[in-house]
């Protein structure tokens, strides 16, 4: 395997940071977790064969995010175990972003029922595409298509929310700058 260049690690770092920032919305924390993740990856891949550095990085970052949530609100060890075990969402996600929460809920609510049903079965119940297809009498390709559509809907909803949020922030900055000038 060829040596990975510093440039590759820098890209990986930026991508992991983006993922963490998406989830936590705290730039300092995102920096910490991303750096920690990439350091661990560099160390790990020296002794282990890693097929996908990206896939492993996202998993490590996700674990650290979960660890962070767990420390915020101590839960029963088994609830924590559940998160790993079932890839279930954290029960105690800190919904400091109520607006984002509302945007995502609204996007879920406005989906065609079948699309929502398929997405929820996959995401919340952890059913495989094959099982969902069997239950609903659809082929796997159709199930994947529904999940793709649902993901794009949700992604768009989050992006819209994020843009309006940034707009508000920049308005606030403008106001503050304006205040200072006066």
């Amino acid at each position, binding site marked *: 395997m060829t040596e990975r260049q510093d440039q*590759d690690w820098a890209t990986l770092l930026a991508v*992991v940071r983006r993922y963490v920032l998406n989830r936590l919305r705290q730039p300092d924390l995102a920096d910490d977790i991303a750096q920690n993740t990439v350091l661990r990856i560099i160390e790990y891949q020296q002794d282990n064969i890693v097929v996908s550095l990206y896939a*492993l990085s996202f*998993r490590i970052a996700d674990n650290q995010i979960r660890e962070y949530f767990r420390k915020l609100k101590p839960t029963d060890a088994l609830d924590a175990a559940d998160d790993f075990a079932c*890839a279930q969402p954290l029960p105690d996600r800190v919904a400091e972003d109520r607006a984002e929460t509302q945007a995502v809920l609204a996007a879920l609510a406005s989906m065609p029922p079948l699309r929502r049903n398929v997405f929820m079965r996959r995401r919340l119940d952890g059913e495989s595409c094959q099982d969902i297809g069997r239950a609903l009498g659809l082929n796997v390709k159709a199930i994947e298509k529904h999940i793709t559509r649902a993901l794009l809907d949700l992604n768009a909803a989050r992006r819209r929310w994020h843009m309006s949020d940034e707009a508000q922030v920049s308005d606030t900055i403008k106001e503050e700058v304006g205040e200072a000038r006066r």
Partner: protein
Amino acid sequence: MIRAIDQQRLETPEEQAAGWLIRMQGPIIEAHVERQFELWISADERHAMAYADILATYDIAGEIAAEGPRKSGQTLAPWYGLGAAVAACLVLGLVVSRGLPAQSPVPQHTATLTTGPGETLDIPLPDGTRIALSGASAMRVSYTSGARHVDLTRGEAYFDVAHDEHRPFVVTVHKTEVRVLGTAFNIDLLSGDQSEVSVYRGRVRVAADGKKRDLTVGQKVMTGESGLTPVSFEAGEGPDWRSGWFDAEETSLTRLVDELNRYATRPIRLEGAALSHITISGRFKISDPERVIRSLKTGYGLRSSVRNNVLVLTK
């Protein structure tokens, strides 16, 4: 002139990312898929950024949807609850937070293992995990860099799983999934799509048919039964079958015959509904099926006959 068009080129990075996410969230990710994913995501920074966004969306949506009803007073039931005959999802988990395990390189490893009646197999795996396979049992083992997967297709096996927080250990039994990070447990696949999970190390949560039960060391539970009521047992050093014994306590005769068939060179079958209702207690040397059959005949008044090389037990 008509040229072949690469389907991927027609899709935006975001759409491609969604497609990859679906493939990369499956219970088993095959090595060649993972390799293709790495090629795709490292080919273009826009791919990587799009994937980071959509993966975050997927994670966040799950978290919000799970707690949405509580926060907003809505109910999710009309969304997906109806008809969601949730496949029995059996979950075992143990979290021990440690650093990355210092371990030797783990290459891709696949194997198909079967045992004949009376045979047992002790399988050391490259990560330090040990699997003991009982008689008349079969499994497929598949290790990738992202997951350790075992498909138990027949019989019974004892798992002593090496801890690796980055590679969950997944056992599938029928439509049931057992997922752990590092613990020791036994799965016994019985007739009638039932299976029994017993815990020898670690703490475990079992979820099936929408019910959840916490199990600690020395507890076992039967899936496919209503209630998932945990039952205590003597955990000791490991399951009894490894020493060729079976401890029955108000156990159905059907179950004992299941266990015997792991060792019997001639299959054993019960005939007549009355027999399956009989419950038995005692310690049986199942590695010696003939001896057990003899004691059943004297103790419970059963009769045996051989038909088409099957030993048939009747009242």
